């Protein structure tokens, strides 16, 4: 009975090779799994911690962010981008302009800022910041861009709930299928 059931499965997959596993590799240890730094946009996986802009301002100097990104995050000292947008909240988020990717004002989710500081900054010493420090630095960069008040405490529960200036005004990459054209037909003004 069991072997009869297997037959259609083999046909469906086009042969045994496709269904094959090789038993190569090993299960990660708990410590290795814990090294994963990939975060979900829901905030699941964020380490416990908290911080506000007042603490963040101190860290911005003591952790030498200021050396590359300039005082008040306004840049101008190195090719590292300024982290404070040129224009304030009276401008559309896409037009506030700054240096780099303007992640503090254009990100739809504050977790992008947290995640980038966590994985990449301070450049040359990345991976040295504690969770509380990252919450505080994130709060500071959101505060200088007038997105949250100076005394707002960010933590693992409210980080992804910060109301970002971009709102819903953004589009992600289109759906992909093999052989689908580069520009989806729906976006062409004259159909091909």
């Amino acid at each position, binding site marked *: 009975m069991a072997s009869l059931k297997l037959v259609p499965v083999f046909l469906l997959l086009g042969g045994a090779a*496709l*269904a*094959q*596993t*090789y038993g*190569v*590799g*090993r*299960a*990660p240890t708990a410590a*290795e*799994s814990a090294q*994963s*730094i*990939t*975060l*979900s*946009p829901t905030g699941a996986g964020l380490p416990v911690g908290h911080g506000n802009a007042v603490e963040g301002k101190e860290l911005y100097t003591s952790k030498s962010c200021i050396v590359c990104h300039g005082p008040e995050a306004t840049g101008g000292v*190195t*090719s590292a981008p300024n982290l404070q947008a040129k224009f304030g909240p009276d401008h559309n988020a*896409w037009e506030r302009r700054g240096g780099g*990717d303007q*992640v503090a004002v*254009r*990100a*739809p*989710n504050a*977790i*992008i800022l947290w*995640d*980038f500081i966590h*994985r*990449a900054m301070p*450049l*040359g010493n*990345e991976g040295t910041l504690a969770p509380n420090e990252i919450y505080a630095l994130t709060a500071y960069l959101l505060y200088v861009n007038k997105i949250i008040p100076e005394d707002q405490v960010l933590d693992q529960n409210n980080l992804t709930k910060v109301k970002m200036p971009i709102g819903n*005004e*953004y*589009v*992600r*990459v*289109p*759906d*992909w*299928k*093999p*052989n*689908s*054209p*580069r*520009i*989806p037909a729906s*976006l*062409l*003004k*004259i159909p*091909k």
Partner: protein
Amino acid sequence: MDPKSKSRRELLKGGAAAVGAVAASASVSKIAFAQTPASGALPSYAENEAPMIPLTDDLIGYGVRSHYVTSKRIPSTTGYAISPDEFGLSFHVATPLQDSIGTIQASSLHYTATTKKTFIPDIDPAKHTLMIDGLVDRPRIFTMADLKRFPSVTRFHFIECNSNSAAPTDKTVQQTHGLTSNAEWTGVLLSTLFKEVGIKKEASWFVAEGAEEEKGASTIPMLKGMTDVIVAYGMNGEALRPQNGFPVRLIVPGFEGIFNTKWVRHIKAVDQYQLNMNDYGHLNRTALGAAMIYQIGPKSVITFPSGGQKLPDHGWYEITGLAWSGQAAVKNVEVSTDNGKTWHIAELKNTPHPMAHVRFGYMWNWDGGEHVILSRTTDAIGQVQPSREQLAKALGVEFTPQYRPPGNNNTIMKWKIASDGSVTNGLA
């Protein structure tokens, strides 16, 4: 006198005579060689000051190109960051397409870019591992030795940086198009590893993360991972080079450069589009803008004759270049020598592969007059490389001479040939 020492003296005498004979014959043959060019025969290397390339350890061990061949990569200025910057970080480095021969770039000349401003990590392959976890039945860690136990594939694919867009101020094809290269990649299909770990039904995307300073991570459709993504450890017959992701990287055929995660160390299967810094970079104000920075469109460029080169005289030349598409194999390439009034089917120099460069050629008898030469390609799913005017029209925007296509510019490139044979950027 000791007979032994006598014989030794005689030996020495004889030896000296033998050396003299060799020297005499060498000078005879040198004269003979030196005379041949005057008599109209082929010239000889023997006239060179140093006729032999010294047999250094490098020449024996790994090989060195001729010192007459000087083609080099250059830091690119087309990306949004100048490289190298004051941190000494090289961001984008362009390949010398004007000198390219055939369809692959030598690994030493392959264009490179880093996800963000990062140094090139010096990874010990014996210690490097790739972890695959997330929505899988059996999370696994693979060593490099493990990866090589799986069935391998070897395929040609190009990689192209999204910022590879010709500007009117660019002088050479290295500047206009040098942020794309093609290579032969060897590795294991990601789908093979995904079967090994057992991807759960609800996993619709995966996140691939590199081991460099900024640990660049991109979210890629699970369907793409199941279709043709390669976990590559080999490039053009040898191990990857550090700048190209040693010891292991992803090849995501047709997707813009940044998705081709170098130094890959972690792949996580997830059930929604993630928001890593790289993904954030692909968010756009419009759906069109997002599409134009995702997959590379059908594209071609003439590499000879191209900007900065010169045709020495009128007469026959092979106009040659490269064509590719991010969705399929190239179907055909057409060449025009009259600024697009008439088009001629070019010869494809090898079998076109999906998402790979193919070289084309078209024999042309230059009459010594002024010409604008162009190429355009059509791919196997029917996409045609547009002119700037055609693209503007298709997207419903007004065309002006200053029109800059959004995202990666795949429009037709023009080279201008002056009556003195000099070649310049036709967009200028």
